[in-house]
């Protein structure tokens, strides 16, 4: 649009950044043009987050220069970067849960009247921005804590738009969104592109990057590997650039034989399970050796279903049969120590899956204290053995098991959560979006692990917000809508179209 469209809006020369002597970025040359949607690809730990934190003023580079529209700049604070038109949406949501949506959207620069915050103007502004992201149903006066993860993410996007970005950075911004919201965000990014805004888009979902971006840059181990226009390389080549080696098929093959789910008693049977307004009579069976997917739009009760089965929720109605015994577990402790043991990999690994401040070893053992104790005392030899087994089984790359778990990359953290549960040798494994925000390589390892576990005779119930995963991994998929199962699909019936149709509750029997 502008005459300057040839000069990069952002240009890096030889940017390096180290943490305690460990390279996070080294000698990175990188440029991004106005009016483009620039995809940044790389595994976790490739340096993408560091790149963005430097761009948005959260971190300062140890070496190198950064130019903004030709001028050398050095942002000391995020505020300075903001003022220069660089707006970033971080992977970790940056909303304050106890403030209202409107407060959050205008948090850094609220409209004022006589020096005091003008609430009415603030609400009006929030309404406009929410309308721009097609989320009119969100009440600007509602508290952020009352919103689901996907709504929060849309509020985050509205907040970013309100800052009138010249460069908009989206770090895993779509990882928690529903497919309808993803479409909205695509539309917005294309509008912004037409206005000459440069967007940097970071996502682990290849098809999103493919659908949206015009330029792609691949990072690996803190280095910029290559930048190219979309379409210049096949998906396979891109993945190879990212992980530096060839990859086999993305999903492990499903067993051709049907598990004898019909003859055998299902390991987990759920009948008319209800909880408040969120679950309205869910029916579901999971047999040994089966991976059953939970599909549907975000917030249709999938997460509540998993939590109810694990004994987290109170006042759940309905019949649940676990390994032939009926009754809903009374607590996670009861669920994981019953005759038929259950495990849950929760939604948010940072707050629910891990004790981030504790060591890798302590996190791995957290579910197994009962199993490795002799009388009241821990059997230290058994503990060490279990830890090294767990690390080996999941190929978790660490320096020392005594290191804090927060020093690991996201993918390795999730592996620690899974390894923790595999130590109790669970019969039923509940997975709540286990691959969210995880790099491609680790995702594939998790898919393979799920299939291996199923082949060992475990029953797996798997919620994912990514349709490709449901199609690629599951033997059966139950699609939830409004807190009940509206469609059950099996084998080759599971396609993107059928899942989307069922998610919107169209083309199936009336609810």
């Amino acid at each position, binding site marked *: 649009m502008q005459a300057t469209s040839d000069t990069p809006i952002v240009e890096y020369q030889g940017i390096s950044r180290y943490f305690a002597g460990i390279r996070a970025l080294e000698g990175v040359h990188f440029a991004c043009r106005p009016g483009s949607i620039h995809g940044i690809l790389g595994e976790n730990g490739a340096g993408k987050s560091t790149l963005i934190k430097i761009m948005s003023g959260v971190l300062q580079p140890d070496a190198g220069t950064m130019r903004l529209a030709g001028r050398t700049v050095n942002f000391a604070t995020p505020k300075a970067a903001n003022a220069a038109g660089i707006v970033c949406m971080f992977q970790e949501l940056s909303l304050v849960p106890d403030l209202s949506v409107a407060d959050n959207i205008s948090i850094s620069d609220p409209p004022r009247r006589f020096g005091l915050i003008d609430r009415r103007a603030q609400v009006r502004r929030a309404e406009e921005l929410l309308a721009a992201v097609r989320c009119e149903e969100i009440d600007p006066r509602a508290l952020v804590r009352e919103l689901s993860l996907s709504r929060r993410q849309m509020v985050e996007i509205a907040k970013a738009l309100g800052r009138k970005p010249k460069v908009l950075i989206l770090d895993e911004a779509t990882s928690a969104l529903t497919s309808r919201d993803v479409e909205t965000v695509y539309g917005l990014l294309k509008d912004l592109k037409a206005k000459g805004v440069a967007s940097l888009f970071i996502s682990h979902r290849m098809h999103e990057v493919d659908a949206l971006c015009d330029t792609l840059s691949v990072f690996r181990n803190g280095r910029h590997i290559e930048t190219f226009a979309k379409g210049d390389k096949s998906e396979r080549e891109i993945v190879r650039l990212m992980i530096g080696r060839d990859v086999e098929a993305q999903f492990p093959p499903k067993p051709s034989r049907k598990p004898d789910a019909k003859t055998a008693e299902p390991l987990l049977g759920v009948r008319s399970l209800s909880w408040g307004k969120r679950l309205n009579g869910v029916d579901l069976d999971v047999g040994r050796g089966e991976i059953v997917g939970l599909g549907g739009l975000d917030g249709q009760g999938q997460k509540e279903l998993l939590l109810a089965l694990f004994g987290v929720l109170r006042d759940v109605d309905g019949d649940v049969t676990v390994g032939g015994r009926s009754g809903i577990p009374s607590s996670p402790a009861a669920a994981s120590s019953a005759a038929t043991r259950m495990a849950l990999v929760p939604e948010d690994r940072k707050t629910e899956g891990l004790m981030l401040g504790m060591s890798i070893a*302590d996190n791995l053992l957290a*579910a197994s204290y009962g199993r490795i104790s002799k009388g009241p005392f821990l059997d230290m030899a058994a503990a060490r053995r279990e830890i090294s087994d767990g690390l080996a089984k999941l190929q978790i790359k660490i320096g020392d098991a005594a290191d804090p778990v927060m020093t690991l990359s996201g993918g390795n953290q999730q592996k620690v959560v899974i390894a923790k549960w595999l130590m109790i040798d669970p019969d039923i494994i509940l997975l709540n979006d286990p691959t969210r925000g995880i790099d491609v390589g680790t995702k594939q390892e998790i898919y393979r692990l799920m299939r291996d576990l199923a082949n060992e005779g475990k029953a797996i119930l798997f919620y994912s917000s990514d349709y490709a995963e449901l199609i690629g991994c599951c033997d059966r998929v139950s699609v939830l809508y409004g807190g009940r199962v509206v469609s059950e699909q099996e084998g080759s019936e599971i396609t993107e179209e059928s899942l989307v149709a069922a998610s919107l509750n169209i083309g199936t029997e009336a609810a």
Partner: protein
Amino acid sequence: MQLSLSAENKPIVISSLFVVAILIAGTAYTLWTAGTAPLLSVGYLLQQLQTGSFLGICAAGMMMVILLGHIDLSIPWTLTAAAMTATAVGGDMALPTALAVGLAVGLVNGIGVAYLRIPSMIFTLGVDTVLRGLMVAQTGGFAPQDTATPLMLFLAKDRILGIPVAILVWAAVSLVIVTILTRTGFGRSIYATGSREGAAYLSGIRTRRVIVGAFVISSLCASIAGVLLTGYSAKAYQGMGNAFLLPAIAAVVLGGTHILGGKGRYVGTLIGVILIVLLNSVLSIMQMPEAGRQIIYGTVIVSMLLVYGRNQRVTS
């Protein structure tokens, strides 16, 4: 920094160095004024540890609760109530009575915090006040027996092979606490729960029982300290526990236990207690007026915590 210390050990090293610094400064003072070095005599140090054992045992229990991210403000009157009830019962049943009072108060605290979900700062403060009321009521109409039993006198004042028994009791309590914290599932669950309760719960840890257990240990420690203190002063009296609450919290925090829970080593708490006891003693040897002692004492605690915070930021 090749020899960089872990964030957990740094406060322990710093407070150890400070203990040494106090001893050197105190000795320099006495050498200059009187030409002697009583601070370095075994007799003096044992005596300090003996008087420090009451605080040490309170701090040991307090640490369990602080590791959970909670606090137990009922220690002063738990200590007093245990001591006064024990002497009122007297005889052989005195010691079991004190422990029973501790157990009961701990259960009430734990259930209030873990099951009724009342913030520990409020709930234990309420329990402290109720206990005070009960003790006032008990002594209101008549004068119950308040003299220490022979067993209490033995525990607080006697010596075995020249070592005060009180120090041995403190050592035994410490051994039990260290074993719990490092060698039992319950102890590791305390760290996990204090680090992030939600994740611990979802890992199948029975977090509410862990919380109750920690509060019970805290109250039991307070009641043991009450028994010793009764023996030391030959009788139980109202307000005998008042001087222990803040120093106990200070000792735990100076020893590097995170006030929000999840992190800390018991050896740090031990050193924190020794630091506080020696600091008080050296200041009184220097004949510092009470006002000056309070100012220095408070300043030391705040500035040590500043040093910890700053170091952690640099290393992270």
